[in-house]
């Protein structure tokens, strides 16, 4: 009697565990193999979403988008993240990954990024891309918080840091700086109502979402090293990723990049 109940209890335990095991072994519905994952620098958040939507509309094929700072994505790729395509805001990350054998090839340059001064509605800062008014605001106490992306691993943060250094206000502005994990978060900080402004990607400032929240003024491109944005197919890239990679270099996608303020390789800068 006792033996029977022990056995039946064990059987019921096993049958209770079965759905758990089944769940564990189930392929998660949206798998990397079926829908290739595209990891992209945060400055592409709006432009790439538009391109991917158009790609799906035209071909019926889908890609998954993951945004972050280029440095973080590169680190995740080294740790085995299942991405098929990587659109970096700084080509150095792509070339390093290529050197260490994580990619198919050295990829291709797809855009040159631009920096802008972002000033939210109601901020006392002037829309001045030469940053003269920013320097004055530090001195006269108008500035309390200023947002940039983290220079340690976000390319737009690194270039913003260079711009501040070029203007000779990097040390003076340091106590006022807040750092976004990536450039989209920096833009979010800048427009949250808790900062007087920030230096962010032109491509973000041109999005309808951000245009509703504030204005922007371009910062001279000569003040920082160029934001050479390179993309590359990773080892696991399949046919859909290949087609999307090609699509990104074709005219409809290029037009969208252009509309978001990117300078395209081989094309002149237009203000």
């Amino acid at each position, binding site marked *: 009697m*006792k033996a029977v109940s*022990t056995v039946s*209890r064990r059987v019921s335990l096993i049958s209770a565990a079965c759905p*758990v095991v089944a*769940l*564990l072994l189930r392929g*998660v*519905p*949206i*798998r*990397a193999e079926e*829908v290739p*994952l595209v990891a992209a620098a*945060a400055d592409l*958040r709006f432009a790439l979403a538009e391109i991917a939507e158009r790609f799906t509309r035209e071909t019926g094929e889908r890609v*998954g*988008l*993951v*945004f*972050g700072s280029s440095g973080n994505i590169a680190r*995740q790729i*080294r*740790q*085995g*993240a*299942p991405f098929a395509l990587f659109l970096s805001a700084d080509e150095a990350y792509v070339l390093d990954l290529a050197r260490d054998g994580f990619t198919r090839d050295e990829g291709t340059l797809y855009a040159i990024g631009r920096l802008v001064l972002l000033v939210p509605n109601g901020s006392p800062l002037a829309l001045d891309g030469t940053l003269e008014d920013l320097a004055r605001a530090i001195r006269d106490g108008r500035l309390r918080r200023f947002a940039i992306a983290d220079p340690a691993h976000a390319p737009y943060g690194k270039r913003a840091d260079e711009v501040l250094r070029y203007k000779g206000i990097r040390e003076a502005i340091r106590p006022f700086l807040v750092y976004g994990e*990536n450039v*989209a*978060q920096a*833009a*979010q900080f800048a*427009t949250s109502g808790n900062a007087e402004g920030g230096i962010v990607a032109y491509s973000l400032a041109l*999005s309808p*979402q*951000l245009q509703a*929240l504030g204005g922007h003024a371009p910062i001279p491109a000569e003040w920082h090293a160029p934001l050479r944005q390179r993309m590359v197919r990773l080892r696991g890239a399949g046919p859909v990723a290949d087609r999307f990679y090609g699509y990104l270099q074709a005219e409809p996608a290029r037009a969208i990049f252009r509309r978001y303020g990117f300078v395209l390789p081989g094309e002149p800068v237009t203000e």
Partner: protein
Amino acid sequence: MDWVALRLSLELAGLTVLLLLPIGVALGRFLAYREIRGKEILEALVALPLVLPPTVFGYYLLVAFGATSPLGRAWQALFDRPLVFSFEGLLLASLIFNLPFAVQPMQRAFEAIPTDLRAAAACCGMSSWRVLLWIELPLAWPGILTALVLSFAHTLGEFGVVLMVGGAIPGETETIAIAIYDRVQAFDDRAAARMATFLLLFSLATIAVTFFASRRVGRRLG
């Protein structure tokens, strides 16, 4: 509302609780009744995720699960895909960082059972399995329920560890908490607010249900 992320969160929390139930009962009971040397160290290890910053914890898990770690390599060889940035890796991380939430309430519940009651049961010739099933579990279940609800709610809300070992991949490791973070960065405040409200109400409801249930049980047993 990001249904994919919500479903993923619920699956993760549900599986975590299911798997933590036997682990927590075994470990909580062991810590409650056994006197062994170095028990304090074991208890400290279980409590560690409570005090460690999630990023520190996430960093160590990332190192332990990574493609170059023994565990990561073994997993890759067995299943032909990496453990980090996968649902399974997230579940493993979730089991570890929920350990104190599951074990501690269960341990307290087992400790609260009078020793003579268990001794009497043993005297009557009940096997320890039967004592567990017929004496201990019925008395300890408010604590067990609390443990499971806390683990469930904590899994829904965990952010730092999930971001570190998960990588925010939609449908695979992007939980609802991560989706909220992502929506804020996409300037989609409406979606972020909707999901945040949902999580708030959901957490409130689960906690309220536990309080209600454990009070009723307390009254019945008292």
